[in-house]
């Protein structure tokens, strides 16, 4: 199988590490060669963060380059637009519609661009946008945004539901398991 590329993007502190951990586990258990790459060091400081997940028969490069991503999973709308050039021509974006103002917007030096979902669609990208924060809160915790997004991503993956459930059980602490399973379902059925 040709190598598939999933990018997970967001803002430092949003919980993308758990999402990449879950995907890594899922794909390893499914028998693929897997590489997961992240840049550490700035993750707590509100910067733009990106994680690369690659899987297939044999994966070489740990990074995904422009025009190579089959999926971009975004925790924040502006970040989806920032990383859009990395999407393949027929690639799929799964994005949270939450907006977090970056410093140039906070200081008033720049505006947060409007209608980004429509503008991304206009480039030809397939965009699946959903209010993950609302769904996560419905599941019981605003922190479950990552699992809501994974639930939504599972739509596009050719892997059985049980595989996802098993990966969640392995990754998530027992006391948060029910809440996260609910978040996964809400994302999946959104």
């Amino acid at each position: 199988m040709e190598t598939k590329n999933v990018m997970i993007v967001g803002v430092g502190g949003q919980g993308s590490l758990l999402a990449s951990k879950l995907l890594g586990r899922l794909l390893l258990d499914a028998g693929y060669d897997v590489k997961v790459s992240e840049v550490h060091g700035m993750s707590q400081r509100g910067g733009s963060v990106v994680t690369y997940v690659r899987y297939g028969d044999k994966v070489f490069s740990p990074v995904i380059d422009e025009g190579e991503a089959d999926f971009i999973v975004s925790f924040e709308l502006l970040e989806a637009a920032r990383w859009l050039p990395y999407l393949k021509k027929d690639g799929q974006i799964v994005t949270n519609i939450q907006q977090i103002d970056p410093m140039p917007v906070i200081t008033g030096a720049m505006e947060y661009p409007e209608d980004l979902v429509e503008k991304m669609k206009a480039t030809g990208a397939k965009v699946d946008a959903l209010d993950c924060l609302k769904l996560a809160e419905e599941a019981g915790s605003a922190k479950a945004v990552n699992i809501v997004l994974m639930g939504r991503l599972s739509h596009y993956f050719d892997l059985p539901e049980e595989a996802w459930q098993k990966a969640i059980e392995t990754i998530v602490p027992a006391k948060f398991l029910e809440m996260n399973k609910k978040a996964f379902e809400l994302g999946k059925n959104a």
Partner: protein
Amino acid sequence: MKELMLGNKAFARGLYEAGCSFVSSYPGTPSTEVTEEAAKYDEIYCEWAPNEKVAMEAAFGASLAGRRAFCGMKHVGLNVAADPLYTMSYTGVNGGVVICVADDAGMHSSQNEQDSRHHAIASKVPMLEPSDSAEALRFAKLAFDLSEEYDTPVIMKMCTRVAHSQSIVELSDRIVPERKAYEKNIPKYVMMPGNAIRRHPFVEERTEKLRAWSETSDINRIEWASSGDKSPVGRRVGIITSSTSYQYVKEAFGNAVSVLKLGMVNPLPEKLIREFAEKTDVLVVVEELDPIIENHCKALGLSVHGKDLLPICGEFSQNLLRDFLGGLIWGHDADRDPSLKVADQIPMRPPVMCAGCPHRGLFYTLSKNKCTVLGDIGCYTLGAVAPLSSIDMTLCMGASVSAIHGYNIAGEGENEKKTVAVIGDSTFMHSGMTGLANIAYNQSNSTVIILDNSITGMTGHQQNPTTGYNIKGDPAGKIDLEALCRSMGFERVRVVDPYDLKACDVAIKEELAIEAPSVIISRRPCALLKYVKHNPPIKVNKDKCVGCKSCMKIGCPAISMKDGKAQIDTTLCVGCGVCEQLCPMGAFESCQNKEA
């Protein structure tokens, strides 16, 4: 058992399996997790040392005592530890010594982009270079064997992409070699001229023995092209590469090219490279940063491409190789679809000082007083970013304290009235103390501010000699900064709370005015530390706010303007109250004040 493992964690696993029993390191991105992960094995003694030189010397001591020892650092850390390294090359080891150095091509988290292979060559120490987690684990074990067999420290060079990417590893059990007896050996271990003169030829012979080993070792391997030996344009292209560059080569060109993949980058093989070159029509060296393998090939008299085609600055990637080498390999440029883009300019999202960061109040005060600020390495380097724009200089660990002395003396009385040095608690312990000793000794009227946030912040919360805890989080010795500075002869040592803007202002004005060297300790723990209790978020009284933007001068990510009024992001605000002190209208209300 198969596991998906971070490169640095796999390195730590290799240390464990190799029976390493002593680890001393100083944190530095992207090397930190090797030591943090090693510390999770109870069988390995692990510690954070005050700096890399101390760490390497401690590891050398453990080696003398007959144990396998390790120290880890980032590329610039090896500059600090270069002194013991260059002579440990002469003494050799008793128990094996492995050194991790992690380079940062692309400067994700560093102040320069130096290529550590130069240190391996200059110190004549062998260097291995893994290209994924499985190799990190395997090479770590091999490095100990080489160290003991050839009587040398061995460097393992990581890079950001190998250190911080996860790939699949297979685990084995830990095997601890018997502790070697220490035997007194003055000619080997006492490096005074008479002995060192005799050790130098040993080092040169060792390099040639290691080179002979590298000619046949399977860590240097050839992968021949599969498509009938020839590239699409009828040339046999051979690529010599190592580390993460190997992965990019395979990703970009697959089996269309032959590859000599080097796992050992010092010393470099000669016969193997010649043999490879003979069976290719075009030879290309693909290496990030400096042309070290390329120059080695040229010294062998080979015709080779390298930095004539590829950049010397920054990281590589598969697209970069397709763009720069596509013509040579395919006979045409890489054909890629144009990238998808929205028309809007996307605002940057740089890292910022966190909401509630104790450094913010201090830097605001320094900006307000128009101070010249000689800075150092740590989170507080972000004090250089707008709107604080406070820092004038950042060079290397400890340089703030050393440089202010020279700056003030050369300023002939002008500079000292408005200049401060700022340095974090961990960086001060690393190499700020010696600069402070110079001020105390040679008596410049310098004002040094120690930003004591009670942790090593930037690298992700490591303990240090001032925090009172060790790497495992257990109670440890705690150095008293005030007593330390006083014992050096500083009569003026004072502590301020950086959340208290008035107190900061008074302290800075007084210490700059006085004709004596002084230390201000700006003390408050990092707002991200788990034990730090946060106040409820600040509230904005919209009736009082006139939209003057005084609160925007501190660059707090929790404050923004909406419809001409300040607003607080309550998910970020920790109620530090710095903005409250800035507001001329009293529009910010902390819950505590309300209760009072």
